[in-house]
């Protein structure tokens, strides 16, 4: 990359209200996935404790409180 970002060559789209709402929805979805991995005990996933137990070791090794 000889030339870095300069005016007129920005790598990200301009932040519009529509982009903000989309970003907010994406953040909510990503946090839901994170929740399913690190905290869920069946309340959201409705899988009982199955997903919780399946990802048990990951939770410990990612450093999240588990049990």
């Amino acid at each position: 990359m000889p030339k870095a970002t300069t005016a007129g060559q920005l790598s990200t789209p301009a932040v519009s209200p529509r982009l903000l709402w989309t970003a907010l929805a994406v953040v909510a979805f990503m946090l839901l996935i994170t929740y399913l991995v690190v905290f869920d005990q069946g309340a959201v996933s409705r899988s009982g404790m199955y997903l919780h137990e399946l990802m048990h070791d990951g939770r410990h090794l990612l450093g999240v409180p588990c049990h």
Partner: protein
Amino acid sequence: MPLSDGSKALTFGALLLRGLLAGLIAGLLAGFFAYGFGEPKVDAAIAIEEAAAPAPAPDAPHEEELVSRNGQKGGLFLATGLYGAAMGGLLAVAFTLLRRRLRTPSDTRAALGLAGAALLGLVLVPYVKYPPNPPAVGDPGTINQRTISYLAIVVIGLVAVWAAVVAKRTQPTEWRQAIAAVIGFLVVVVVGYALLPNINEVPATFPPDLLWSFRLTSLGTQAVLWTTLGLAFAALLSLGRRAAAQPEREPATAA
């Protein structure tokens, strides 16, 4: 030939896709690290847990009933892969919304800076206050309180990073900026550490060397994840920009 504004800008969808892909790669790599270095320690801790457990009570849900240990070792990759992809998605959103506010011309530095900020705020600040524990450490009765305290320290970690950036930008010269950033960061972290309850539930009988090596492996897993995520996201951004730039640059050789 003047480039029209935004001709090099990736769409939000393209940025998000790169973040998710980088996160998946980072999560799987962290999974391999955790599998190789962490699983022996989890196994050892579970052996201690089972040896210490009294006769299984009927009302206590037993760990190994739903998913076997081998299933949990496979589930480790599912956990780190999903977690990595989610973190990659969040990094892509942060990059999209904050890129124009970050005072660097380099996308690579911006991506690595955001990943480093996340490692500091999301991992290192919580790690020092509430170090990760292997199975057999921790009272199940306090899990809700521990989870709330953990979430609080994650938020405090992110606020501390933000405070460092805000404090840095109030100062005119480089060395004063560095000092202001450190002070801003420390003020938030120290206040947060003081306000949140201390938790120490390590049984006196738990081997200290096992606890120590487990915590180091856990930190290593997160370090692998965020380092890979930052590097992979930066690399994918650079590839995307190069591909977008080539058809325009080829005819204009005269510069």
